[in-house]
């Protein structure tokens, strides 16, 4: 299998945070959702991938090349960050002129088509854009230089559902060519449930799980039970649980459950919530 993105033991140390041996692979032609709570290490991982921060260890391969050694691979990598990074004094037309001299495969017609599709005025200054428009402009730039891999960091956060849906449609169209891939970090798990093929889940700098989304969703389920029933389960069956006045709700691994327990489907939100905030059974160590 060919991979668009490979991380092997990626490490980055800060005083109060460590990105700890993150390893994952994104096959070509797929979308991977990268989820985790705020401060989990999503942005740090993406910044390390594209060279905005230096890594303290590990390997990064984007489209088979190490971007820290060979910047030419970035010709084929599109990046959209949560905050805009284009000069507010410029307009889309001027930006297009600059981009044509930065990216060898810049396609001005493609850029124009995206701007029309996004209803972005050619002459309007970026400082007059809404957040949604800034995100769309970033996406238009990322898609207009022949990128084969898109990296998006919280690109849909803070946007209304219609704009978010637009962006998801574009990403979906983008990967129809099986050479194209998307790595999308978000804490809006509903978006990822719609379009992601793979999910990577990071918590406090550590990758807790990586896998196909459908496998993940079918592997985990929610069990509503009493405290006594919960105690009867093997500790490694329960990923996390929460108690309420009505009893206990636990995120469980379906394939480890005895057959007579009714287990409901869990969403990515549930998996994220119970893994991060759920209590662990007494003999559980980590997750």
């Amino acid at each position, binding site marked *: 299998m060919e991979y668009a993105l490979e991380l092997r033991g990626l490490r980055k140390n800060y005083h109060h945070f460590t990105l700890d041996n993150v390893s994952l692979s994104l096959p070509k032609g797929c979308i991977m959702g990268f989820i985790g709570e705020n401060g989990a290490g999503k942005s740090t991982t993406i910044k390390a991938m*594209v*060279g905005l921060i230096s890594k303290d260890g590990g390997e990064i391969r984007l489209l088979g090349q190490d971007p820290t050694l060979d*910047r030419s691979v970035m010709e084929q990598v599109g990046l959209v*960050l949560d905050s805009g*990074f284009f*000069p507010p004094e410029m307009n889309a037309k001027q930006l297009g002129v600059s981009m*044509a001299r*930065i990216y060898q495969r810049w396609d001005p017609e493609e850029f124009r088509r995206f701007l029309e599709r996004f209803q972005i005025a050619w002459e309007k200054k970026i400082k007059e854009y809404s957040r949604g428009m800034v995100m769309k402009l970033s996406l238009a730039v990322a898609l207009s230089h022949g990128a084969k891999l898109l990296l998006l960091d919280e690109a849909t956060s803070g946007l209304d559902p219609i704009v978010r849906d637009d962006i998801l449609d574009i990403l979906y169209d983008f990967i129809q060519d099986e050479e194209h891939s998307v790595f999308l970090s978000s804490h809006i798990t509903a978006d990822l449930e719609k379009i992601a093929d793979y999910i990577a889940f990071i918590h406090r700098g550590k990758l807790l799980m990586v896998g196909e989304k459908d496998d993940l969703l079918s592997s985990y389920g929610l069990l509503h039970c009493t405290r006594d029933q919960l105690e009867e389960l093997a500790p490694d069956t329960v990923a996390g649980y929460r108690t309420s006045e009505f009893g206990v709700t636990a995120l469980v691994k379906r394939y480890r459950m005895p057959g007579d327990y009714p287990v409901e489907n869990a969403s990515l939100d549930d998996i994220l919530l119970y893994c991060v905030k759920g209590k662990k059974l007494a003999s559980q160590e980590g997750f």
Partner: protein
Amino acid sequence: MLGLLYKDIYTAKKELLLTLVMLALFVGYNAILGQAEMLGPTLGVMVSLGAMTPTYSLNYDKTCGWNKFVCASPISRTKVILMKYLEGILSSLVIGLLVVVCNLAAGSPMPSWAYPLLFCTILFAQAIMMPVCLRLGQNMVVVVFLLMVFLPTGLLFSLNKAGIWTDEAIRAAFDFVEHHISSLTPVLVLVVLALYVLSFLVTRHIYRHMEF
């Protein structure tokens, strides 16, 4: 790399226009009234502008997030900094031309040997302030620039007041420069260019280790 230059021109359009208007006012005033006394302040403004222009650009890239984009693009960080220094030289040349125009408009009170000195002054100031801007920010650039202007002036004034460096000695120093300017200029240009290259290497080192 041209894309970076286009972007810098687009983003600095308003400032460039303002600079040109100011210079047009100065030059027009000097030409119409023929007041040579105004040449000093005019040159002061122009040298300041020439010295500060690349630092404004560096600071702008820091504050608007452009560094995040450009450092994730195919362009190497060395090229980003190289372009800032080339823009610095370009702005020095443009200012140099404007100095010539201003001097002619005021009836040429400034000797022609002073042109390379002014050019070197701008490059020298840029060489000092570019790494300062990247490391410590634009506010510190202003502080350093004021120190560069007022520290030597104040020192000279104090020494003069204290009678250590008399008016005659100052005049003699100026005469010495004037008489030996043909041999001093190449040395001065080489020294300033060497400093400029050193400054580029320092700024590049800072930029390569910056995290965004």
